[in-house]
């Protein structure tokens, strides 16, 4: 348990990206994810890669730390790559036994792997550089217009920020409970699946009880401070765009336009080759 995945964690440091308005980062992440699906040729991926590299360099988060977050999806990536590699029909490239690797399969598997990798790195760049509180503030502001349709935006973002806030607390608590039970001879590493599932009971019962207790305490504390939902509630640190944020939006827009251009031009190139 010592080496936890770094996905979704915040990396504390001071950088241009850390100081950026969280709304820019939130929208930026959406745009980046969409761009990965807009782009469909290698020139486009090089562009996305460069964009990401510049982002990482500016964020001052060690690259090693980011890569560690990828560990969690290595398995998923392998399955995707292998499936694409062997199951795509097309021009055979290599074939042995009953398996055939086609040119298209190889092409598709590579693209898929790049896409997944960029997707994870891109979205973890947001969580690495934005505190959960900033993130939910940004969400509340970005999705604010939905209030017109009676979507409880404030409540949802409040729930999210509470949930996010509790992740490290509960992780730590799990760790302590686990240790307390190991000290009583509990075995969490049994090879036997049934035993392993049963061994979770001494872990989960105290964890649930503590989670409910904490939820109760928190509700009480919120009520004691007259919390009554989002109506008329002001912020201590309202989000304000600065010059740098506007510049970031412009860069983002430029990147996205470039992605679209590359796709259109790329397909034309392919078309020319095809003809």
């Amino acid at each position, binding site marked *: 348990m010592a080496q936890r995945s770094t996905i979704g964690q915040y990396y*504390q*440091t001071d950088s241009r990206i850390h100081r950026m308005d969280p709304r820019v980062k939130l929208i930026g992440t959406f745009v980046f994810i969409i761009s990965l699906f807009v782009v469909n040729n290698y020139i486009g991926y090089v562009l996305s890669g460069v964009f990401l590299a510049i982002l990482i360099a500016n964020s001052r988060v*060690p690259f*090693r*730390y980011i890569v560690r977050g990828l560990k969690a999806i290595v398995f998923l990536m392998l399955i995707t790559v292998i499936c694409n590699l062997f199951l795509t029909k097309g021009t055979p490239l290599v074939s042995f036994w009953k398996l055939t690797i086609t040119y298209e399969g190889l092409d598709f598997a590579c693209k898929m792997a790049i896409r997944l990798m960029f997707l994870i790195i891109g979205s973890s760049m947001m969580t690495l550089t934005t505190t959960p509180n900033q993130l939910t503030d940004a969400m509340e502001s970005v999705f604010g217009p939905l209030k017109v349709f009676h979507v409880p935006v404030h409540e949802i973002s409040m729930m999210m920020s509470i949930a996010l806030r509790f992740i490290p607390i509960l992780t730590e*608590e799990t760790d*302590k*409970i686990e*240790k*307390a*039970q*190991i*000290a*009583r*001879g*509990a*075995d969490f590493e049994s090879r036997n699946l049934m035993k392993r599932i049963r061994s979770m*009971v*001494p872990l989960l*019962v*105290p964890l649930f*009880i*503590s989670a409910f*207790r904490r939820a109760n305490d928190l509700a009480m504390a919120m009520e004691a401070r007259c919390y009554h939902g989002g109506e008329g509630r002001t912020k201590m640190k309202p989000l304000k765009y600065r010059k740098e944020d506007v510049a970031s939006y412009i860069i983002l827009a430029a990147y996205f336009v470039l992605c679209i251009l590359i796709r259109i031009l790329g397909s034309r190139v392919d078309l020319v080759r095809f003809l």
Partner: protein
Amino acid sequence: MGLSIEDITYVYDSDTAMAVNALNHITTTIPDDQFIGLIGHTGSGKSTFVQMLNGLLAPTTGRILYNGEDIHGDGYDRKQLHANVGLVFQYPEHQLFEQDVITDVMFGPKNLGKNEEEARQAAEEALSRVGLSSEYYKSSPFDLSGGQKRRAAIAGVLAMHPKILILDEPTAGLDPRGRDEILNLIRKMKEEMKMTIVLVSHSMDDVANYVERIMVMNSGQIALDGTPNEVFAHVEELESMGLAAPQITYIMRHLKDLGMDVDTTPLTIEEAAKEILSALKGH
């Protein structure tokens, strides 16, 4: 034989910017049949240290021997170590989970491979030692009071028959009466069962009257180690670590400064009263 700790260090999050040196070259021994108080300020490394002692954490460097065997050596039976070196954590809520008290206490012995009957016997014995009578056997551990929960948690570890019992802040959050009850209980257990007890606390007053040896931890090192009187002679050092000597020590020192011919070593109010009276009679 007990535990011998040879030059251990421990570093949290060693490969990130948040690396913290929790333990810094500690060497000491914890013999059989001794009542030890482990004192330290919050963050002094005492919790990390006790988790090392029963093998829950492995030291980054250095080794720990139990009865002469390296507890992180190949093929060492760590489960048996957890039984021999029992560790009771601060919050009983972290370990109570069964439907009733007796089944919960039986969890430990059962994990050691005892059958239902043996486990029940061990559990009943442990519960009677901590002073929970049979009327509580069938009640839910979550319905107990704070002090009772703590007793049940101690029984849960005691039922595994440890040779060394480590209690992490067993009195935290208890009222003065509950605190005295738990401490007296621990002393009684120590006397009856002849085991080593390590009592972790940040309060000198808690441990001063009970233990025979005090280890003071400060920033990952053992700063002072000796009998209570030896340790309390270093009042200034203790204060610089954010700790304090027992209140009675301060009174006796003050009296001495005022010119009264008293010994500053008494640790309980009764001893102090006797000392003051004899000093007064001497005049």
